[in-house]
């Protein structure tokens, strides 16, 4: 590599760096004819399906809002950022949304880890942030500017514990994913179930990246428990339920909201029969389901999308109510808002922690690859 080659490489490098830096500043020109709202969700990694699904719902919501005259007479523009379901990337993304795109409010994130990572930065910059899917209990204390329209796992675990006790399943084994979501549910369920008089026979966990739960399930099989509280995301759940079927475990498998993903049941088919899980109730209107099917090309609706759709509508309503784009005004309007008619929960009001006051849960059961709602 003689002298000239070094110079050529040098020039190429400098051009790339300048391009990198300039393209950043170009983007931050503040054109004020739109109201900018930031969106954060997992668009890559193993929970990418949740993010992409929510992105489709938001596209529908934006069109509906803008067709109805937008917000404060201006159109709503949503800027999508990938948080990769991790705290660090989320912090990076939220800093870009707040500082470069100067968004008025942020809709995100889905994974609790991402929300927890981004929350302190949004709180410091006093930008209201509404999470549409983070159910981890610690998000409640994340700050005054941090809201969420989905209830915390605390409620979900209580609901599941009481349901199982109601069905007379006293001995339960826990099998939870080793991440913030899984551990949050484990702690909440253990407290709720022991308080309700149940017995936690064993409490094991698995590495979210590994799909091999055979050893854990074998130990559970030896304990002949009434039910197994199995908190896992899509991939480990498919593998786990399949392996449980291989082992012939008869216990009732009970999961959490991540099981509301049709891919699990279409893959498992009849192997998933009998599995139940709690999920936040949604009253998706037929119109909303149709639009989603059109947008996605398949009727693969994840409940987070309902809450993302509502979330954007709530933020738009709050900005209208605050009648200004000042972030603090929007935050105050948000805390006092009363939103009805959403596809998520029928009525949304926030308590002083920024959590929804009501939490309507339903239980779904899998049969032949299809999900049916179970009446309480």
């Amino acid at each position, binding site marked *: 590599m003689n002298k000239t080659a070094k110079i050529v490489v040098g020039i190429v490098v400098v051009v790339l760096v300048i391009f990198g830096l300039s393209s950043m500043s170009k983007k931050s020109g503040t054109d004020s004819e739109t109201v900018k709202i930031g969106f954060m969700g997992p668009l890559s*990694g193993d929970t990418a399906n949740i993010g992409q699904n929510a992105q489709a719902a938001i596209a529908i919501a934006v069109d509906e809002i803008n067709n109805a005259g937008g917000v404060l007479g201006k159109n709503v523009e949503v800027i999508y950022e990938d948080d990769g379901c991790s705290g660090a990337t989320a912090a990076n993304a939220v800093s870009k949304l707040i500082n470069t795109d100067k968004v008025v409010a942020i809709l995100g994130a889905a994974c609790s880890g991402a929300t927890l990572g981004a929350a302190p930065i949004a709180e410091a910059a006093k930008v209201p942030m509404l999470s549409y899917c983070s159910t981890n209990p610690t998000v409640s204390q994340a700050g005054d500017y941090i809201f969420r329209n989905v209830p915390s796992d605390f409620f979900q675990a209580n609901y599941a514990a009481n349901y199982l006790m109601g069905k007379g399943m006293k001995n339960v084994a826990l099998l939870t994913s080793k991440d913030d979501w899984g551990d949050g549910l484990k702690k909440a369920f253990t407290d709720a179930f022991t308080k309700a008089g149940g017995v936690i026979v064993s409490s*094991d966990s698995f*590495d979210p990246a*590994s799909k091999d739960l055979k*050893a*854990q399930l*074998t130990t559970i099989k030896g304990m002949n428990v009434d039910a197994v509280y199995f908190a896992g995301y899509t*991939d480990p759940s498919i593998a786990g339920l399949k392996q449980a079927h291989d082992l012939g475990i008869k216990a009732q498998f009970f999961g959490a909201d991540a099981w509301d993903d049709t891919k699990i049941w279409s893959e498992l*088919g*009849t192997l998933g029969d009998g599995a139940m899980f709690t999920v936040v109730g949604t009253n998706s209107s037929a119109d909303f389901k149709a639009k989603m099917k059109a947008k996605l090309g398949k009727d693969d609706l994840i409940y987070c999308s309902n809450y993302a759709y509502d979330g954007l509508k709530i933020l738009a309503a709050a900005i209208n109510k605050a009648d200004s784009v000042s972030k603090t005004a929007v935050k105050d309007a948000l805390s006092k808002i009363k939103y009805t008619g959403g596809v998520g929960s029928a009525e949304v009001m926030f308590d002083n922690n920024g959590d929804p006051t009501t939490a309507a849960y339903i239980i779904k059961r899998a049969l032949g690859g299809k999900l049916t709602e179970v009446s309480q």
Partner: protein
Amino acid sequence: MITWQIILYILYAGVLYSLLVIGFGFILRSVKFFNVAYGGAFLVGGYMMFLFYRVLVISFIPAIFLSLFISGLYLFLSHKFIFSFLINRKANNFVLLIASFGFLTATSSVLGMIFGSQATIIARRLSDIHSLNIFGGTLNIVEALAIIIIFTLICIFAFIYFKTHFGRVIRAVEDDSEVAELVGIPKGKIFSQLFFIGGALAGLGGIIQGLNVGIVPASGLLFMLPVIVISVLGGIRSFWGGIIGAFILAIAQKLTVVFFGGSWEQAVPFVILIIVLLVRPEGILKK
């Protein structure tokens, strides 16, 4: 009853690791560096099988052979266009290792872009893979077949390696490729053949994993690290050492899960690695 079930699962895990470590051992002993791109062939095998068997609906056996061919070709081409230049240039092991790491990262991200980063399930219907009762314990059809097929493969490769002319040639190249070349063995050709065989074996591993549990781009690296540990544990120089190392790791991993809980499973290979390096770096069966 549980112990018998755990033994069955240990057998399956040990067999799968042995398959991977045989192919990896051929490459490691000949080109003398930890070729992490081997994990790429594992992924290519799995994803090609998904493409042929589930997407293009080709019947099972031809789909397997096609996938094995492509994963073998993948590693063959990686040798032809990347590693052979570096080897001829006498680049040191670390340079080769970095190049193979880069190649694996590129492969897994490209596959992630095409097939998505969610788990890819190869079986058309998971219920196809019914389970069998083996004296009380259960194994699904994929696991049982895998055990049988891989045992036969181990015997075949052991026979080839120790008894046939081709095996002698491989062993000559493994001992000292320069000397082998002096004696007229075409080193380059043998290397690319070994890369092809290694790639096909890794591809078979990917297919089995894909059928049994599903495959994700990250499992390329996730499977490569234990395989490296096993080849060090079993003794890099020896064919049988790798297989013994595979079963030791399988036993250790399953027992850790049973006694310490699932979340420690990922650390098991590395605890073993550190112990082996400190106590007996040349591995169990040093030649």
